[in-house]
């Protein structure tokens, strides 16, 4: 115990370092004037109210939700079934998914943006579709992790075999037994993916640009024009992320609890 003082210092530093920027930005969103004094001169709801009256912010928010939500939905429809089939029936191919996950990590947005533009910019495909597709691929690591963990924690293989032994068809066993059991883990993975995509800037900015103004692009514009509005955007963003993180941790806890029973 006595030797930990030194390490504690690092721990406190870590917490301060992670929270100070967040707290300062949130405070800025409610500050009347904060240019010459160390702490704000007064507090106001004016900036938040202004932000929500700005129709271009509301529209940008809608676009972000549509784009990120659409990508997550497509991943649930097309990637999750593939992961199910491979993990449950063709486990020897699972290493290929793992390889794909590593490759997705290895090629971040700035590299993928070059490829998307070279491949699709000159053949008349709407580039927003290219970004949507790239979003679906870029959340593969989170979707795979979420699906894999929940399949493992409910012993999916035995569960399906048991259901089929008791007379359920493959489709019934899948939709009535397996899906409800893995749902919390899947949902947590989907929310995590959504929150990652909601903060995405590189692909949308380089490939599509301000023709499809998401919250991140809106924020980038406000950065140079109004600090108060920018901090209000960050405030709204943080509240949304906080809610999503809270739900994710509840879901993960629940699916862990279910595994223990």
């Amino acid at each position, binding site marked *: 115990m006595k030797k930990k003082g030194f390490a504690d210092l690092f721990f406190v530093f870590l917490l301060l*370092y992670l929270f100070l*920027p967040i707290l300062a930005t949130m405070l800025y969103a409610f500050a009347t004037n904060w240019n010459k004094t160390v702490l704000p001169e007064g507090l106001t709801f004016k900036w938040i109210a202004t932000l929500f009256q700005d129709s271009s912010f509301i529209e940008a928010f809608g676009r972000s939700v549509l784009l990120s939500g659409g990508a997550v939905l497509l991943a649930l429809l097309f990637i999750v079934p593939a992961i199910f089939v491979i993990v449950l029936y063709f486990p020897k191919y699972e290493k290929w998914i793992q390889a*794909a996950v590593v490759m997705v990590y290895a090629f*971040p947005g700035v590299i993928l943006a*070059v*490829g998307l533009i070279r*491949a699709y910019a000159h053949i008349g495909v709407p580039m927003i579709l290219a970004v949507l597709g790239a979003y679906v691929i870029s959340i593969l690591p989170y979707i795979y992790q979420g699906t894999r963990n929940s399949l493992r924690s409910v012993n999916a293989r035995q569960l399906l075999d048991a259901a089929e032994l008791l007379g359920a068809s493959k489709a019934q066993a899948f939709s009535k037994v397996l899906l409800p059991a893995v749902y919390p883990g899947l949902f947590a993975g989907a929310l995590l993916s959504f929150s990652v995509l909601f903060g995405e800037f*590189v692909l949308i900015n380089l490939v599509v640009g301000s023709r499809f103004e998401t919250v991140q692009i809106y924020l980038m514009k406000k950065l140079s024009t109004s600090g108060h509005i920018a*901090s209000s955007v960050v405030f709204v963003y943080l509240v949304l992320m906080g809610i999503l993180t809270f739900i994710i941790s509840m879901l993960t806890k629940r699916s862990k609890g279910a595994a223990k029973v």
Partner: protein
Amino acid sequence: MLTSKKQLLVWILPFLVLVLLFFIVPLLYMVISSFSNGGGFTLGHYQEVLTSSYILQGFKNSITLSAVSAIIALVVTLFAVYAMMRFSEPVRERILMVSNLTSNFSGIPLAFAFIVLLGNSGLFTLLFEKWGIDSLSSFSLYSWGGLLLVYIYFQLPLSLMLLYPIYYGIQQQWKDAAALLGASTFQFWRKIGIPIMLPGIVGTFSVLFANAMGAYASAYALTGSNYNLVAIRIGALLSGDIFAQPELASAIAVLLGVTMVIAMLLSEWSIKKTRRNL
């Protein structure tokens, strides 16, 4: 049975099409484009990258920024995880959850938060001015040092998330056994703890390094295209702040991609090695 199993393969098809269309095809086009010169084959873009001191400087800046931010984040989280172990498991999990929340705080919002703290009329800038610490109040966020602070911020939660399970694998029994045999805490860590964790630490380092090499948004928000980093260079050549040179951008992106793949393979290899040890 066999036919029904084969029918299941249909479910994999859409996934393969997506990977092909939005991952493999773009990357192939990027590689082809890096060798092409308006239709013909050329090595000229690579030659340009390797002889342009400006682009090489960008690589150098990115590599040092990524390596230094990764090392600092690693050292801080190594000690922080050690300190965290005195809390009960539910408390530790709550700390991890909060740290995960901050991992979403990156890119443009993060850059803005640092402007609020350390920008030209930032909280700390004013504070240091008031206290008369000129050396600190003249600190520029829009420089290498400023970028380093921002990069450290987004490395910390990731580093914590990756190191915690590695640290968790160090069994209490090993410590007890070592203590019974007369080893001090320091000896335990030097001879047993650190060597066991080492591959994991190396793996974490390469993930953090790759994470920073590919980062774009925060640096772009802070310095526009002014600070010379590889990712910023690619973006500028692509969107044509001056004039677009997508083929040169492709060549740089291929080289960056090779760097990233090497870093990821290194981390995969070390993580496998750690798992065997624990």
